[in-house]
């Protein structure tokens, strides 16, 4: 016999299942729609030529070459600055620092650094690098600002990677007469490299997509030439998109969506590289 309480249980079950499913769809749908919309509207303009030619007609036509190059240079420079600092900090925190007041404060600072709004980083970069250090608005100032922004990502990922190396490797290395630094260098760090790389790429992908931190520190409205040194300003994709979407009248939709598509493609492919890399090394891992 099916009692009323049994039927109620069935209905509760169905209701719960459908709300769980709906919530999941709510997360999925926007991603699909955004990517679909950008692809559909941007594809017509997308071509090798779009990527490799200068903008023309007051950026209402032509390509986005300088913004693509500027973004790649900026992101690479950001990685070059942030990677060593992040890894060294992570090594200190996991391998050397004892758990006391100072290290707890540092950890708290790192967590909070990750929560600072990106426009604040922009303002900070303007004050410190552009004005105080006299770098001016330049690739260097922008990269340093972005590097500080992604430092928490790299430190956290590197710490996790270092901690996942078995404690026994350290014991073995020390027992063979290695110093603490030799142990880190030869018995820990090599096995943490995949995790560190993954974290760094994710950080760089975040840096590639941000607008606020580069607004005052590096981004140029329009430059007729490519930057030739790290002290030059540069055009960058997110800011270029902002400019042609809001600052210039009568830019054809297709130019905007084409730019958005390239930016999205860059960020997504960095993320995919990170995910694939992680999966690859996880499969290959021997311990």
């Amino acid at each position, binding site marked *: 016999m099916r009692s009323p309480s049994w039927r109620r249980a069935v209905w509760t079950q169905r209701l719960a299942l459908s709300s769980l499913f709906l919530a999941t769809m709510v997360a999925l749908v926007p991603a699909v729609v955004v990517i679909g919309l950008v692809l559909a509207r941007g594809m017509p303009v997308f071509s090798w030529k779009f990527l490799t030619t200068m903008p023309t007609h007051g950026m209402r036509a032509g390509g986005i070459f300088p913004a693509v190059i500027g973004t790649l240079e900026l992101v690479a420079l950001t990685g070059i600055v942030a990677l060593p600092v992040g890894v060294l900090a992570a090594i200190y925190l996991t391998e050397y620092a*004892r758990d006391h007041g100072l290290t707890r404060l540092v950890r708290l600072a790192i967590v909070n650094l990750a929560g600072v709004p990106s426009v604040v980083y922009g303002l900070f970069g303007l004050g410190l690098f552009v004005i105080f250090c006299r770098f001016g608005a330049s690739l260097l100032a922008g990269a340093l600002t972005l590097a500080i922004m992604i430092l928490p990502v790299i430190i956290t990922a590197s710490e996790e990677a270092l901690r996942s190396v078995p404690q*026994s*490797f*350290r*014991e*073995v*290395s*020390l*027992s*063979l*007469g*290695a*110093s603490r630094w*030799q142990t880190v260098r*030869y*018995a820990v760090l090599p*096995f943490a490299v995949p995790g560190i790389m993954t974290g760094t790429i994710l950080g760089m992908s975040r840096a590639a997509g941000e607008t606020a931190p580069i607004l005052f520190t590096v981004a140029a409205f329009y430059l007729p030439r490519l930057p030739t040194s790290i002290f030059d300003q540069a055009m960058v994709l997110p800011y270029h998109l902002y400019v042609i979407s809001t600052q210039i009248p009568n830019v054809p939709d297709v130019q905007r969506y084409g730019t958005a598509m390239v930016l999205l493609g860059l960020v997504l492919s960095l993320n995919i590289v990170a995910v694939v890399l992680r999966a690859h090394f996880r499969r290959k891992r*021997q*311990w």
Partner: protein
Amino acid sequence: MVSPTALATKMHVKDWSVWYGRIQALTSVSFEIQERDILGVIGPANSGKTSLLRSLNRMNDVDPTFRSAGQITLEGRDLYRELDSRQVRRRVGIVFALPLPLPLSIRDNVTYGPRLRGERNAARLEELTERSLRAASLWEEVKDRLDLTAMKLSGGQQQRLCIARTLAMDPEVILFDEPCSGLDPISTAKVEETMLQLKEHYAVVLVTNNTKQASRVSDRVAFFLMGELVELDRVDVIFTAPKDRRTEDYVTGRFG
């Protein structure tokens, strides 16, 4: 035939006590480690065997809660006051309970210690690799695949690789921390055979949970209980006519 009294003392442990935080692991232990001799260390869990072993090559140093009292000397020099911890670990090698090769090639595992000590000469490293692997009775099994990752070896082979890795540092004393606890009987027999060969040149300390193993390979046996050294004597005395009742109970399996 060398009589036991003619053996030279390699290490001297005097009134040695160990604490981890507030917990005392060893209480005023005194004994000697002799050259060309295997000292078996037996006792139940928590008897202080591993604390003792880790004291003998300063592996305890990495634990911030570790404290000690008393003195350990290596050829008359104080381990904790006169010698540097890296020096100590080179001269007093350890083989851990589980086979713990690093995920490197067989060759790189063996030469890990010497390379970090600064040995760069390829020919010398090559010669050292062969000599160490031979001494650990592993050479014949791996000589054609030295560049294979050590993780592909069997458990028994990995443990002999770890012995070779310790030997490659040319230590004076070798500590074994239950080296056969994860091995099958045949691998165990091979490791035991290796230990008996090593005795010809080194002072060996073997901590084991396997009383039979202690009786098979040791020259002298020390019985530890709750952080104290209950009895230390020649192996035949410990297993046939121990002086302490607790030792007798333990070796005959009547314990606990």
